[in-house]
């Protein structure tokens, strides 16, 4: 169960079903003819309510989702976390270390040695946990805390040429700190 993806899917489905219901309702009523002067005022009244609901919903969604952004570390030079340097190259990931102990807050310093790549962290269930772009000339700092030990995969999420789909690296999260992570 991955909360964000599943919630997003359900929310999308519910809202799309509401739009569909409106279209089906209107299509079913379309054969019946009524004076437009009678239809319009009711429709406009309902539109004002719809507008209000969307605006209020949008404001709440904005406030709720922007209080914490993944960019905070990128623009905060004083932040200190365990750091792993990642360089994307056609078609492999160069990592300064490929394992970390669970519950460590890791900053991945992600860059590219050639073209644009996308650095995506997948868990053992093949669910995407976080990502950032890897691009030439820039270092994007992605902070992630692994809360479960196990095998993870780093996959490319920006099209980068012939073996884009094969640009996968393994990453291990251990229960405790191992020698290589020191």
């Amino acid at each position, binding site marked *: 169960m*991955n909360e*964000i*993806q599943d919630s*997003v*899917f359900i*929310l*999308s489905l519910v*809202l*799309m079903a509401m*739009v569909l219901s*409106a*279209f089906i309702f*209107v299509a079913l*009523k*379309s*054969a*019946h*003819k009524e004076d*437009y002067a009678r*239809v*319009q005022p009711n*429709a406009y009244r309902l*539109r004002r309510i719809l*507008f209000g609901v*969307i605006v209020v919903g*949008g404001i709440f969604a*904005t406030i709720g*989702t*922007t209080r*914490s952004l*993944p*960019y905070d570390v*990128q*623009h905060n030079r004083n932040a200190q976390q365990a750091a792993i340097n990642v360089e994307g190259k*056609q078609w492999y990931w160069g990592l300064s270390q490929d394992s970390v102990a669970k519950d460590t807050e890791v900053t991945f310093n992600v860059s590219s040695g050639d*073209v*644009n790549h*996308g650095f995506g962290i997948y868990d053992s269930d*093949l*669910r*995407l946990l*976080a*990502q*950032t*772009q890897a*691009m*030439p*000339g*820039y270092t*994007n*700092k992605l902070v992630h805390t692994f809360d479960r030990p196990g095998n993870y995969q780093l*996959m490319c*999420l*920006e*099209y*980068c*040429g*012939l073996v*884009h*789909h094969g640009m996968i690296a393994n990453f291990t999260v251990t229960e405790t700190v191992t020698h290589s992570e020191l």
Partner: protein
Amino acid sequence: MNNLNLAPLPGSARTGILTYLSISAVVFLLMMLVGLTMRLAQAGWIGLPPDFFYQLMTAHGSGMVGISGLAASAVLWYFLRRYVELTVAVLWINLGLFLAGVVCVLGGIFVGGFGGAWTFLFPLPSTSMGVWGIWAAAFFMFGMLLIGTGFLIFYLDVARAILSKYGSIPRALGWPQLFANSDAPMPPATIVAATMVFVVNIMGIVAGAVVLAIMLINLFIPEFAVDALLTKNLIYFFGHVFINATIYQAVIAVYELLPEYTGRPWKVNKVFLAAWSASSLMVMAVYPHHLLMDFAMPTWAMVVGQILSYANGIPLVVVTAYGALTIVHKSGIRWDIASSLLFLSMFGWAAGVIPAIIDATVAVNNVMHNTMWVPGHFHFYLLVGLVAMLFGFMFYLVHKEEQGSSLVDRSAFWTYLVGSVGFAGMFLVSGMNSVPRRWAAHLPEWVTYSEIASVFAVLIVIGATAFALRFILRLPQARTV
């Protein structure tokens, strides 16, 4: 000021419009077959070498966007000429440059082996690890430049025609009525939409031309340094604006034709004017939502991208989609293949933007960006929305009232509807399950999604084949007005 010109189309203009649409119908079908081929390969039902898969992907992305732009410009031209004097020669110049550009693009892809995707993100065109040569990339990008040049000339003519009648962009957008309580007649919906389209599309195409020119120089003179993030901004600004402007001009068919089918006017009021003016600005400012995973971008740009993405949905849902529902509700509308497709298109657009808007939330984008969720939402509003709108317009031109709604038309409509909703839906399901987009080969865990999607893609191809054939076979009876 709003007198309609309902004189028959000059012969060359009529031929031009029908040529645009015939080419579009055939290319839509071909590109759908390319899409089906890619899904079959991801399902493992056919074997495709990855270089060829990525060539097909490049052709599919650039081809679909380009041909949608061409078909939508025919919609714009057809209705706009009822209000202003457009130049027929420009219609042909655009088509000529488009076809010349297509030859270069296809040559770059299938002769030169270019597979850098429609996004041609710097420096991939020049850095393929020997898969394609510099000349292949150059041909592709030069072809895109030619196509853009044709469209630029087209929209400059639209701008000239509108401005020579309305005097200024604010007047054509109805700002005196909106902001100064002017009692002058409201500009027609088509004028407002066309003005918005030429304003944003000229900006978008120029941005695209700039980045193509920069990258073409860099191809041959690598010392001519290019910033990867700057080019990415320019490419996504161009791409976002162009495809959105394509939908905004195709929707003119809905504004013009639903009143004809329902006998009710599409009344332009202050809400309508405000919505279109707001959309003009937001369509240009919202593009950073494509760059939410480029952490080096300023945080404010990302937050603005998210907020404007939410806001940008309001004019569409509250004005255009809702307006279509209002005008059809209890109208006694005459249902035929054209009106059915136009009505469907409003559903496709309004429903398809929902997963798109949600994906513009930074926290969501963090786990959805560049997964199949993205082609999921844009295939929804392009297949069920835009393409339905365009086929609806094509049928309007060639369908006669006395022909009613035949069994073939109805079967094609439902086949296409089920196919396109199911196909886009499988992308969304794949995206929920984190399947990456633009992968030539899928992991075994993901193959089932591609298998189901392939079946839906076959339905789309069957429906679209029927649409295209019936349009082309009925061309001799096309309207002259």
